[in-house]
C-alpha cells in the first residue's frame, strides 16, 4: 500500500503517527482512504475537487501536476508539502 507521510500540522488526526499506509491507486483514492481512517483529514487537504490552495503533493519525491487524478503505485510515498516558488 502507498505510504503517506503526515505533515506535523495534521498529525493530531493520526494520533501522532508520522506516516500511515492506506489503499489507493490515485491521489483522490488515497485521500479518501485517509479520511475514512482519520475522519476530517480530507477537508484539510482538499477544497472542492482540488487540493487546497497553497498545498502541493509529491509522489515519490516528485511534485505532481495532475492534482487528485495523479496515479499512485502500491509502493509509492506520498508527501503533502507547502506550494512554494522562490525569488
Amino acid at each position: 500500500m502507498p505510504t503517506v507521510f503526515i505533515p506535523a500540522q495534521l498529525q493530531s488526526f493520526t494520533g501522532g503517527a508520522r506516516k500511515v499506509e492506506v489503499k489507493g491507486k490515485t491521489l483522490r483514492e488515497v485521500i479518501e482512504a485517509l479520511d475514512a481512517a482519520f475522519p476530517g483529514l480530507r477537508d484539510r487537504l482538499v477544497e472542492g475537487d482540488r487540493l487546497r490552495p497553497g498545498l502541493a503533493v509529491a509522489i515519490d519525491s516528485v511534485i505532481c501536476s495532475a492534482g487528485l487524478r495523479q496515479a499512485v503505485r502500491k509502493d509509492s510515498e506520498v508527501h503533502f508539502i507547502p506550494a512554494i516558488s522562490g525569488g
Partner: protein
Amino acid sequence: MATVKTKKTTKSKKASQIPVRYRVIGTRPIRHDGVDKVTGRAQYGADVQLAGLLHGGILRSPHAHARIRSIDTGKAAALPGVKAVITSADIGPVTDRVVDLGEGATRLQHLRDNILASGKALYQGHAVAAVAATSPHIAQEALRLIEVDYEVLPPVLDLREAMEAGAPLLHEDLHTDDLGTKSMQPSNIAKHLRFEKGDLEKGFKKADQIFEREFLTSMVHQGYIEPHNATAFWNADGRLAIWCSTQGGFTVRQQAAAILDLPVSSIKVIPMEIGGGFGGKIHVYLEPVAALLSKKSGKPVKLVMDRAEVFEATGPTSGSHIQVKIGARKDGRIVAAQAQLAYEAGAFPGSLVVCGMMCIFAPYDLEHQRIDGYDVLVTKPKTAPYRAPGATNAAFASETVLDEIAEWAGIDPLEIRRLNGAKEGTRRADGLVYPRIGFLETLGAARKHPHASAPLEGPNRGRGVASGFWFNVGLKSSVTAAVNSDGTVSLTEGTPDIGGTRTSVAMQLAEVLGLAAADVKPQVVDTDSVGYNDVTGGSRVTFATGLAAIEAARDIERQMAERAARLWGVPASKVKAAGGVYRHATDSKKKITFKELAARLDETGGPVVGKASLDTSASAGGGFGTHIVDVEVDPETGKVQILRYTAVQDVGKAIHPSYVEGQLQGGVAQGAGWALNEEYFYDDQGRLANASFLDYRMPTALDLPMIDTVLVEVPNPGHPFGVRGVGEVPIVPPPAALANAIYRAAGVRLRQLPMNPGRVLEAILTRDGKPPSKA
C-alpha cells in the same frame, strides 16, 4: 571561470534524445536584447506614454502602527488639475476568502489591505490614499491636502517581542495556526510549522558534543535599480490594461483580478522591460491603485515610486531569529540537528520561513532532525521573496555552527561537509528524497581549486567556506514559435526576462532545430498574446520555459518533416531530422536544410507554428553551491575587506555560461552586502531611517574583488540538456562563508547580520571578556 563536467546518469541519457555534443548549448552568443538595452531603446514601465495620461501619487502613513479614524479627501479633490482621489473605500466590498495565486495562497482581505490600508496603517509607508492629476506636481500637492486622522498605536518592531503574549496586535482577528490547531487567543504569530525526521533525542544521545547557538538577521531589501511602476487604463468597455515592471504578467493579472473583483479575461498585463526584481516584483503594489484611479478619472494613469517608497512600502525579505542545536561525534559526524526559525512576515502573514526550514540542513544527510518555523507579524512592510528566500538566513546559522564543529573535531571545513554531505537517495527533513544532485561534486571542485590551498599572507586575514542549497522550481510555462520564410523562428514567451532568459530559452529551441541562436527571435509578450506562464522566479525560466521551447521545437521539427515528405512525395515517417537537415531515410540524395524548407512553406501547406504549454514541476532539480572567501579585518575599525572570492556551484548544464557566471557573481555580491552592511534601520517609533541608497549601503564594485566562478555540471535528469536553476543558490552561502572567514581573521564568531564594522569591532573588543571602550 572553470567548468567541471560529470557523466550523465543512465536516466538522463534515456530522457534525452538530443546529442550531448551541442552546437548552441554551452556557447556564448550575444544577447538578443543587448543592443536595445545598451542604446537606451528598451522600454521600461516609466517610459510608457499614452494620450491623456494622468500622473498619480500615493499618500503613505507616517506611522508604523495607527488606527485610521477618518480620511478627508475634499480639499485634494477640489484642487484644479486633480482628476481622481481614492481610498480603500473605492475598492468596494468583497467577501474575504483565500485566493489561490498559482504559486501560493493568501487572504483576499490582506491582499487588498496591503495596497490601500483599511482600518489600520500597519507600517510606515503603508498606502492610505491616492490621487491622479494632470501633472506629477499637482498630484504631490494634492496628497498634502488629504487629511487623515490617526490614532497612533505602539509599533511592534522586534521579532521576539512580537511573539510574546501581550505584545500589541497587528490583527485582532489573527490566531496562530499552531501545527494545525488554531490558538484561542489572537497573536502576532500567524503560523507554526514543523518538519521532523528520525528520533531527535536518540540522535543527541549519540553526540560527543552538542552545539547550541542563536542567530539574528536583519530585514534587507532586494535593491533592484528600477523602482516599481504601473500605468493602467480602464477602458469604457470594462477592459483593463496594465503596463508595469513585474516578474510575472500573469500573476499581476491574477492579483489585480482578485483585488478588483474582475474576471482575469478582462485584464491585459503588458510586462515592460524589468530593471531587476530578485523576488521583489511578484507582489502587486501600484497596479490595482492605478487601475482604480483610471476607472474614476476615465483616463490612463501612471504611478512611479521613488526610492524611499520602494524601501518603505515594498517587500523586503525577512529579518529572522534562528536557534540551532547540533550534536556531533568526535569524528565529525553529525548525529542530530534541531532548528527553530522565526521569520518576520511584516504586516501581513506569509513570510517564507518554510523555505528556510526546507533548506537549513538540506546539504546534509542527517538521520535525526526537527525543524520548527514561525511566521511572525511586525509593523514593517509585508515581506517578499528575495533570491532563495529564507535560505540565506538559515544557512548563516547552520553553516557557521558546522564550521565551529569542524574546528572542534579538528577536521577541514570542506571535509566535514563531504563527510556529512547529501547525495542521491538522501531523504531531507521535509521527507523528499534527492534524485541525482551535485553537492559532493561542488565540494570536490572547491577542494581542487587553487583558492582552497593558496597561502593567506599577512595579518588579520582569514579564509572561510560555506555551502548552500535551493530546491528550484518548475511550474507552468507556455511558448509559441513561428517559422519565418527566411529560416528564422519568432519565439513568443510570457516569462519576463530578468537574467537573460530570452537568450537562454532561444538557445534551447535553436539547439533542437539546428539553428544558430541569432536565428531565433525571442520576445516577451502580454498576457493576451501567449498561454499561461507562472512568474520568473524560483530559478525556473531557463529550466521550465526552456522545456516548453524544446517541446515547441520538436513540434516544429515534426511539422517540417511532414513538409519535406510532401516535397518528396513520401510518408513523413521516411524523413529524418538532425542538426537542422531533413533527410530521406533511404535516399541519401534527398535532403533539405531547415532554412531551405522554410522558404518553401507556401508550397507545402502554409505557415508552421510550434507551441507547447507545460507544467514542469516534476523535475526541476535542486542546486548546491560551495563558496570560499578570504577577508582581512581591520582590528581598529572592524571593517571587513573581501580579498578573494570563489563560488562553486552545481549548475546542471550551463546553457549560456556567461549568464550563469553572472548569476553566481550577482548572488555573491548581494549576499556579501547582506552579510556586511545592509539592514533596515528603524527608530523606536518604527520609522525607517535609511530609505535611500546613500544610507542603505549596498556593495559597489569598489567593495568587491573579481568573483571567480566554477561551474560544476551534474546534469539534472529531469531536463533533456540537464538544466538546473542557477539564480538562487549563490546568495545562500556568502554570509556564513564571510562569518567563518572573519572568525579565522579576528578570532570572533559573529552571529548577527549585518557584520558591519561596529559589530565586528565590538566583538573584537569583547573577545577576551573585556567590555568595549566607552570613549
